[in-house]
């Protein structure tokens, strides 16, 4: 077990930023933290990284195998913004981190190479563009070869190539057996990379589980025919159907995921209606996310 969080809460005056959050993350998971702005993702990560003091609740890294400070030396972090000494070079900044983590062979050049900053290693941090700062922060997280990486919006400020590169780095790191905790708004990235997700809103954990389990209960099927009204009447009786919507000359059916599209085709044919359009889409994480966060409001 990499991280266990137990009823963690943070109160700022009247505002309950995080409310009794409990969660377990196992080794090898690529864990996504999803939530709208202000939902408490960064606060939660801040608490488990000892930056923010919890109001109540506990958490434990690596099942208590290490002292908290020792544990953090084995966690690579990027939280909110890249934080470095502006008047020092990139290489020097990484050396400081290597020193704090007591790493004997920091491999600084190697990490800079991985993020594509080797050519600018001696430039002062304040001369860096936003994308470069972000990439340096990722390099810093890799110093000391940590067992866990915690990333808060790692693709922030990056161009599409950068985003793809970060995705590759994260995949590479995950493939080497490390665990990753990632907070992100970019849902299709999370969908591509993460194995598990937790959806948080207003400090509460709304859903957690594998990406597959959160998505798959329903699918969306688009159908169309010349006579939409008739088609609608045909489908209305199907029990597995939860919702029918009309949109731009299409019917959007929300139906259980294992209902075969071909059955819809047959049902329509039997009633004498020929489909002009049939398209089954698994519900995206984004649609699921918006639904979960919209309905479950305090």
């Amino acid at each position: 077990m990499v991280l266990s969080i137990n009823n963690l809460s943070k109160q700022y005056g009247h505002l309950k930023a995080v409310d009794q959050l409990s969660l377990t993350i196992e080794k090898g998971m690529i864990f996504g933290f999803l939530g709208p702005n202000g939902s408490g993702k960064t606060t939660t990560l801040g608490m488990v990284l000892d930056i923010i003091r919890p109001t109540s609740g506990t958490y434990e890294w690596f099942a208590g195998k290490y002292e908290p400070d020792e544990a953090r030396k084995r966690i690579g972090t990027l939280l909110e913004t890249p934080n470095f000494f502006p008047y020092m070079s990139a290489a020097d900044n990484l050396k400081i981190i290597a020193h704090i983590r007591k790493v004997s062979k920091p491999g600084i050049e190697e990490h800079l190479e991985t993020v594509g900053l080797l050519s600018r290693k001696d430039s002062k941090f304040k001369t860096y563009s936003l994308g470069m700062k972000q990439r340096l922060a990722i390099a810093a997280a890799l110093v000391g070869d940590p067992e866990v990486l915690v990333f808060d919006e790692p693709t922030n400020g990056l161009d599409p190539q950068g985003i793809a590169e970060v995705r590759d780095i994260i995949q590479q790191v995950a493939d080497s057996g490390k665990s990753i905790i990632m907070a992100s708004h970019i849902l299709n990235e999370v969908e591509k990379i993460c194995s598990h997700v937790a959806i948080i809103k207003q400090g509460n954990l709304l859903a957690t589980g594998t990406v597959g389990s959160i998505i798959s209960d329903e699918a969306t099927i688009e159908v169309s025919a010349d006579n939409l009204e008739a088609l609608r009447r045909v489908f209305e009786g199907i029990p597995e159907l939860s919702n029918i919507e009309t949109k731009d000359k299409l019917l959007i059916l929300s139906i259980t995921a294992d209902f075969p599209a071909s059955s819809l085709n047959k049902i329509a044919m039997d009633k004498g209606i020929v489909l002009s359009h049939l398209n089954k889409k698994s519900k995206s994480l984004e649609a699921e996310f918006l639904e979960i966060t919209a309905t479950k409001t305090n």
Partner: protein
Amino acid sequence: MFLIFVLFYTILLPGILLAGKNIPDIDNPVRITNDILFMFPTIWTFIGYIGNWLAFFLLGYLGVVMVTTEYQNKTFRQSIMSGISRADYLRAKLIFAAGISLIATFYMILCGLIIGFLNTDVVIASKLWAHAAMFPRFWLMCFGYMSFGMLVGFLIKRTALSLMLYLGYIAMIEPILRWGFHRKFFSNESMHFYPINSIEELVQPPYGNIISDFAEKEGFSFYITYTQSVILAILYIGIFIFLMKRRVNKSDL
């Protein structure tokens, strides 16, 4: 930034003293030349006093800034995330402050020795070291100013505001508290037992002893003894460090 401070201190400490060469001699009522500034043993009182002012401005400023920039750049936050403990972080800062104070003290001694040797006709060992007890007190004073600056930095976290509070407290708030309020109720020695005053009085102005003898004749003590100031300074620095520790351990970064 740091280099600027070093430069200022390095140049100003002997510079201000040597500027005294421009002070004209006074012939009436008693002949006083400006030689006293540069000769043993009195040079120590003067250079110590200049050092006192420079430590208040430059070292205290350094104390504030070395803490607040780490809040503003969020490098304190990053260091904690990288794995340093809050206790170690504070310890490192305090050791740095102690070290800077030590360097400042040595430099003061160096300047004093050089200028003194160049300007004293006959150097007598006893006169040279007459004020040697001032040296450790000077270090304590530097450390005192720096730790007060650091405390303000940890409490306020923002550079400009912290500097204002640091200067404001020393120049205005504490004097008002002492002379304005405390004296109304207790017009006695205890009005001098305030933190910054204790630190300042570790190195008294030149001829402080003459002034205080004079004041005492009127039944009013102006300065506190060195023993008192050392004990109080150590006590207050201890309190500053305790408050810093608590602040660092409790705060969100």
